[in-house]
């Protein structure tokens, strides 16, 4: 369980999560990624740098551009960390949905 702390900060940002989703489909250059966002190119570059620093993205120089691809193992590490929380609350809330439905019927 030795995750670097900043991984979780990296994915706390919605733009960075969007970048990960984008790159999950196919490796892209920084320019191609930037086309999908309204933010200025330097802002997107900064996001990419953060994602690469915490190893969520793998940066491969190709010609004059850098291609970014998803580092799947790292993503799975995060997922395994997050899923128990998610599952617990998901189950809890599904049960609460049922309880609320019953309360509604009782109130009618």
């Amino acid at each position, binding site marked *: 369980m030795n995750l670097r*702390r*900043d991984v979780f900060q990296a994915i706390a940002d919605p733009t960075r999560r969007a970048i990960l989703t984008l790159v999950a489909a196919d490796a892209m250059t920084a320019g191609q990624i930037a086309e999908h966002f309204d933010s200025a190119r330097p802002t997107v570059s900064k996001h990419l740098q953060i994602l690469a620093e915490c190893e969520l993205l793998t940066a491969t120089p190709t010609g004059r551009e850098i291609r970014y691809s998803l580092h799947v193992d790292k993503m799975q590490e995060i997922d395994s960390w997050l899923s128990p929380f998610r599952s*617990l*609350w998901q*189950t*809890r809330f599904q*049960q609460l949905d049922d*309880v609320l439905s019953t309360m509604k019927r009782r109130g009618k």
Partner: protein
Amino acid sequence: MSQNLMFDVTVDKAAQTVLITRQFAAELALVWEAFTTPDVLDQWWAPKPFQARSKVMEFRVGGRRFYAMVSPDGSERWAIQRYTEIVPMERIKFFNVFADADENPDATGSNWDLTFSEQDGITTVRILVHNESLARMEHLLEGFKLGFTAALDSLDDLLRRQSDR
């Protein structure tokens, strides 16, 4: 009941916080009741096959809920929630700490901040949990993994099968 209701879990390990956001297709008064009435709370707080059992619940600032999560084999895991702030229909803050059956608390716990809001008959609940120590958060997760994952996986399958029908 399958409207597009929001469910989001975000972990910020550096800040030692977990933020859970969820919407419910029910009016605020009902959701508030489900969070603050012991016999209702005990119906949903523990993920099946676990069962929550509140031994004490004094829902007021300075009061406490002393409850157990009971596993199918009957073993109990006790915890105390001490209420530090209550704004009716709006906010609940408490300090949560695990304890033994005699209500002797652990050294470290977590601070919970729950906020409630309603719009167009949909109630949004936002739960921010801040752990006092990263070690505790890790420990908590390991506990979840060992205790819950297997049970939850089978439940997930069951629920999926039911919703596919």
